[in-house]
Every structure is written in C-alpha cells, then in structure tokens.
C-alpha cells in the first residue's frame, strides 16, 4: 500500500475492505471465488488449503482474469507484478530447495514452516513432477508454474528483514530499487537524514542520459542540453549549461522532501528552482536508465515526464538569464556535445566573431 502511495495510485478505504475480504476468504475453487463456511471442510479434505493462500489472494490470484482486471485495487497491485518477477536465486530455492544442500535451510524456513500456505504435499508432488517429468505434460507444469506464482507472492511477504538483502527481496517486484527507495530515500529523508551521494549521482546520471539522449557517464553535473530547434528532441547536442550536484554558489542538485514526498530539486539560483517529484516509478526509471536501459523502451510515460521536466528546467534557466541580464557584445559561442565510446563527454566550443 505504501508502494501504491509512492506511485501516486490512490486507493479508497472501501477498496481496501474489498481487498482484505478477498485476501481472507478467497479460494479459486469456491463459488464466486470466495469461501463460505460450508466450503471449508471440503477444501480441507481435498488438500487444497494452499490455494486459499492469503498472499495470493491479496493480489486477486483467486479471481478470474477478467474479474481481477475489473477491480481497480487488484489492477494497481498487479502493476508491481509480484509473483511474476523473480530472480534465479529465488526460483532455484523454490524448485530445488528441498533437495539442495545450500538452499535447504531457506526452503525449510520459508516454505515448510508455513503450514497453511507453504510447501504442502501437493506442492512437493507438483514440484517433483515438474523437475523429473518430461516436457509432454504441459498441463501439470502449467499448474506448478501457477503455484510458483502464488509461492513467490508468499515469499514477498515472508522473507524476513535480515534476509532481504541476501535474497534480493525486491527482485520479486518490477521495482527492484523499491527497497532502497523506501529505506534509503524516503526513510532517510523522513527521519531528517540526507540521501547518500551515490544515489543522487545515479539519478543525475539517469537524468543526463534522458536530457542529452546519449549514453553519457557524467554524474557530477546535470547537463542542460537542447537540440538546435526543440528541447524535446531525441538527441540534444547543444549544451546550454551545467548545474553541479555539489553546491556551488547557489546552484545544486539534491533530493529533498516537499509536502512529504521526495523530490529532485534543481536549484539554479537562490530564488529559482525546479522540482521533479521522485515517485517510485520515476526513481526506478532513472536508476535503470543510469544502468543502461534505453529510456524509450522502459517507460514512455516516465520518459515524457522527464522531458517535460527538462523543458521546465530550461525555462527556469532562461528566467535566470533574464534576471542576470544578457551579456551583450560577447562573441557567439555554441557548445556542442559529443560522447566518446566510454561515455566520456566531449564538449566542443565553436565561437563566432560578432
């Protein structure tokens, strides 16, 4: 729910009631997918208690696909794709954990100790069949894969704090930086702390790559670049200015809280600044772009957002220039950006005599 908040998704209270009811009572084989008192003995007798997994139901896993998609709250929660995202480590543990020496302790602790929804007899049976069975029996493996989805969802809630790092809990969601975001950005800011420099640098690097449209490595300055005609062009080769990340005069780039939410603030002078609300999606987007993902293919929505932000920062820059007054009589100079193969920045100045 906190994640929803940080994505700007609003969930009303009655939807939360709906969610909780479904979480407690949901079962895919019950009528209308919700258990009634009379259903319970039968479910116990059939050994399908695990299918009533609270963790799966939270995501509407018990519902039919169309029904799930029609309920906003599940649609929101499923945007995190919990259950579908995974890492090799988690899946190895789930599939081979019962037999593998190294993975066994985790499997025991996380799966077998959960008597309700963990690894019950039917799970073990399906798992054995999946590992040993031939490829012909697709139905059986499909059902096991469905169980895996449910178990991954369980793990998302069950993995204790101390194992969070080790098992890379957040790789179970589409937002692999979400843990870092909640603790080291939001958490740190809310307790009056600061955001670590490497994080700011990574976000700035992501911004630079979107702003310039080239794979730059630079993370010490924020590059304000335009193309010759539009600032929103895919590649912006003309450098207007650089804003240093560490404070210099009145310029700096920092991550702070505004109205209780983290924002990236670009300070251009003591009075002029522009802020970009750094919600989870944008945080993830910029982090991934800094890692090498292509902005357009990862999220068009975020890409547009960031380009609009660039447009606002550029507008602020011209505001600052208007305040400072233009330097008349100076030679015309054009700073053209290029990137060498290692991502280094070449900044070529072309000067024209007046």
């Amino acid at each position, binding site marked *: 729910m906190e994640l929803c908040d940080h994505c700007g998704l609003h969930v009303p209270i009655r939807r939360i009631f709906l969610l909780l009811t479904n979480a407690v009572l949901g079962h895919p084989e019950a009528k209308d997918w919700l258990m009634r008192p009379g259903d319970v003995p039968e479910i116990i007798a059939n050994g399908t208690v695990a299918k009533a997994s609270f963790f799966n139901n939270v995501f509407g896993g018990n519902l039919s696909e169309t029904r799930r998609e029609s309920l906003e709250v599940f649609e929101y929660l499923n945007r995190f794709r919990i259950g579908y995202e995974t890492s090799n480590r988690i899946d190895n543990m789930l599939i081979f954990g019962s037999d593998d020496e190294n993975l066994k302790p985790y499997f025991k602790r996380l799966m077998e100790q959960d008597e309700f929804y963990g690894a019950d007899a039917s799970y073990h049976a399906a798992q054995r069949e999946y590992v040993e069975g031939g490829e012909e029996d697709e139905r059986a493996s499909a059902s096991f894969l469905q169980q895996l989805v449910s178990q991954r969802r369980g793990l998302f809630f069950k993995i204790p704090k101390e194992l969070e790092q080790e098992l890379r809990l957040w790789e179970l969601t589409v937002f692999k930086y979400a843990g870092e975001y909640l603790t080291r950005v939001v958490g740190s800011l809310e307790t009056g702390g600061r955001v670590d420099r490497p994080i700011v640098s990574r976000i700035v690097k992501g911004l630079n790559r979107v702003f310039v449209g080239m794979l730059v490595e630079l993370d010490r300055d924020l590059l304000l670049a335009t193309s010759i005609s539009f600032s929103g062009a895919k590649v912006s080769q003309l450098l207007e200015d650089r804003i240093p990340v560490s404070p210099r005069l009145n310029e700096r780039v920092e991550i702070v809280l505004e109205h209780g939410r983290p924002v990236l603030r670009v300070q251009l002078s003591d009075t002029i600044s*522009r802020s970009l609300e750094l919600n989870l999606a944008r945080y993830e987007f910029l982090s991934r772009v800094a890692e090498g993902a292509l902005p357009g293919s990862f999220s068009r929505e975020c890409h547009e957002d960031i380009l609009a932000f660039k447009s606002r920062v550029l507008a602020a820059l011209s505001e600052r220039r208007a305040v400072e007054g233009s330097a008349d009589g100076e030679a015309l100079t054009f700073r053209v950006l290029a990137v060498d193969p290692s991502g280094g920045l070449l900044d070529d100045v072309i000067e024209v005599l007046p």
Partner: protein
Amino acid sequence: MIDLNDVLPPPHPNDHPQNEMWVDEQIWGHRLWDRESPWLLFLEFLGVAEACHREGRLLDQTTRPYPFNFSPQKRLHLRNVLFNNEAIFQIAERNPDSATAWAEWLQWMEDSAKGITRRDFSYLRDRFHSFQNFAALVGMLRASAVEAHSNKRWSSRFVFPFGRNALYEDLNITPTGTVSREYINFGRSGELLYQMLNRSAQAGELRAGLSAMVSGDNPWNALIGLMQPDTASDTSERGDSFLPYRRHPAFDRLGADWLAIHRLKLPGFDAYPHLVILSALHMMLYQLETAAQWCAEERPHFICEVVAPRKTLVRELSALNFQSNQLLSQRAVERVIADFENSDELKAAAAGEAAFSKCKELLKDRFRWPGEQEDYDGCSNPDDLVRAFRRKAVDRHRRHVANIHRAYGGEVGLVSKRGTNRLRYAPNDGLLKALILANVERRMEYNEFLDRLYDRYGLILGDRAGAKVLDREDFDQKAFRANSRRLEQRLTSLGMLRRLSDAGAYVENPNSGGGR
C-alpha cells in the same frame, strides 16, 4: 447561416486575372491550398508576420482588410550558403588549412551561386575562426531545416524559423538564375492564417508573443544574420490574398489556442510544433465550419476513435463521419451555385430576351466565369451554360480545396488509416498533447476536458458528446465509454492524466505552473 454583414466585398477581378473563376474564393478566400504541409503553412505565416513586424504593423487591426500587402525577404545569400552549397563539406575535409579552404570555397561559390548579382561571399571569412567551424555550423543549420529529409530543390528549402534573419519566401530559381515567386509550397494559406489571427479577438494580446517569435532574440538567429552580408535586404511586395470574413468564430478559437500556448512560456522553440499542429487544425475547421454555414447545416463534428486493437462501433461511425465531412465542402460549392440558379434574377434573365447573353453576364458578374473566349464553347442556352459551369466549378474544387480536410486532417494527426484500411478520425499523441497544452491550464477534470474538446473543436471521444449528436439507434453508450477509457489510458501513458480516485480523473498539463 453566414452573416452577410461580416462578409467583405470581393476584390476587383483584375487583381486576380489568372483565377479561372471565383467560387471557392468567395466561400473560403484566396486561397486555401492543400499541398502545403502544416510546417510550410506556419513558415509562410511567419514570413508575413516578419514583414508586417518590420513595417511596425504586426497584428495591427486598424489596417484595411484588403488589399493586404507585405514585403517578404528573399535572403538569397543565406539560402545559397545553406542549401546550394554541396561542396562545403568536401572542401572542409580536403583542406585542413583554413586559408586554402576559404579560397577554394569562395571560388566555388563564385561559380555556383544562383539568383544574386554579386556572388561575393568573402564577408564570411572574417566572421568565423576557421573554415572548419563555419562548415560545422552550416552542417548543423542544414540539419535543422524544416522537412530536412524531403527531396525539394534548394530554393524551396527552409531553415528552421529561428527569427527574422531566418525567414524568407518560397522562390523558383531557374538554372540561368532568374528568380520568381513560387506558389507550390507557399500557396497563400499562410497569408490567410495571418489574417485570421489578425482578425481574431486575441490579436492585441498575441502581438507581444508573435513579435518575439519573428524578431528572434537568440544566438541562432544572430548566427544566421552573420551568414548574410550586412546590406542584405531584398524584398518584393506581395499580397493578393483575400479572406472574406471580417470576423469568424473559427478565428477567435485559433487566437485563443495560440494565446494559451504562448502563456505556457515554453523554453526555446518548444511551442512551435504545437502551434504548427493547432494552426493547421483550425484552418481545416474553418473550412468545414464555413462550408456548413453556407449549407445552413449544423457545425460539423468528428467522431474520434481512440485506436482499439479490434474493429469497434466507434471506428465504423468515425469512418462514415469522415466520408460525410469529406463531401461537406463540395456541398457548399453546389449550394452556392444552386442558390444562384434559383435566384429570381437568373430566372428573370432566362425568361426574357437575349436570355443567353444576359445569363452569361450574370454568371460572369457573380462568379467571374466564363472568361473571354476559351472557357465555354457549348450550346448557347442558359441551362447548358449553368450546367457546364457547375461541372467546372466542382471539378476545380475537387482538385485542391476539397482535399484540405483530408490533407490537413492527416498531417495534424487527426485523420488516419492506422490499424484499418479506411480513413477515419483517430487522433495521435502529438495532436492530443497540443490539445491539452492549449486547453488545460493546470489540471482539468477528465469529463470537463472531453466536453471542452467537443464544444471548441467538435471532437467526440466519449459518451456524453456522442449522445448529443448521434441518433438513438447509432449511439451505443458502452462503445463510447470504452473509447473514452482507452483515451484515459493513452493520456496516462503520456503522463498527462492522473486518476486520483475512482470518481475523478484529471488531465494535467505537464508544462504548466512553472514547476513548483
């Protein structure tokens, strides 16, 4: 219906001796030109604005509406440097030494420059540090050209409109160097656009913004100035364009959209693509709306499909709607002629003595047809004459003016075949974005936004507007709701819509509010 008080008297026939007749012209003006892309329309417009600005009468509503004269620049030095200059990059590469490169290039220009009497470009040598620098800047300016990838001859290529130094008119330059005005790319629609804004209610408020656009206080405009000799001012007086209405609701809507975009204070030239789209869109709306007025019909509407993976009812309706709108302008032409045919004046002439010559005189008086000799060689009777006239007028209309709806509609991103094989209305992202920037100051409730799109442009995207115009048997609320939901998703993915609760979604203008 057309309010005749708002209609200007037609210009003297001798002002337009080459016009075969005066039919489309009296409905929409001289002239709407379909072969002009929205960007060229915008450039032609800026050229007019620059000329008026130079004479200190930019958007000055006190000037007489006709004749509307202005003197655009030719800027042949600049155009030779930028576009008739294939050798520059090879020379720069071949000669690392700047002085040799300059010498070779100046000689080349002396041999190859066209359309100017003194082919001396040596003024450039003192303005750049090196020939290589100069060549690099020429390369960048060339890359910025409007429609840079089109295969136009050099005298019809246009550098990006950075400011006054970068604006000039379309020319035809023959291999022998004769220069004449060309009307293929700049077909006068841009002149009409200027006059529309000039006659809009917002003209006064738009003056400052437009003045900044055409003066161009930016380094690129300065650079382009440096590419031209100090004495370069070569203008010719133009202006036979004619816009028949003193005022028109379409002009005011155009003006309001321009003003809204100006007020966003987008950096650099970021406003231009939106102005380009909106201007051409309003030209198209002006054409259809005027046609509907002449036909005494309701203002046209546009059922828009938000592209769906499968065929939908909305797509069907949209395709039918497109076809009916496509014929609207022709109906207006036929209506004007039919009104003439049914006029008492013509009936009286046809019944009286010397019927043929009297009818011919009437026709000539009203529509400037037939001309001296070659236009009509049929039987000498009034019915045949009028019939032949109608056929010719409709033919002529179909060749260009009738295509405005499809051509402009397609280029602004309203009309498309995407996902199907029939043309229909399916707005693309660029158009949606321009509409949001022009209509949503900060944030607007989603349904209010849809209502506004219907009220101002006649665009139908959701069930509320759909219910207003469609018959009960055509209207399917579910289909239009689904359409509006798809739009909601599209706008969300563009970062322009946020749903804050299940009851309220808001369209947001990402460029508004200065960022705080």
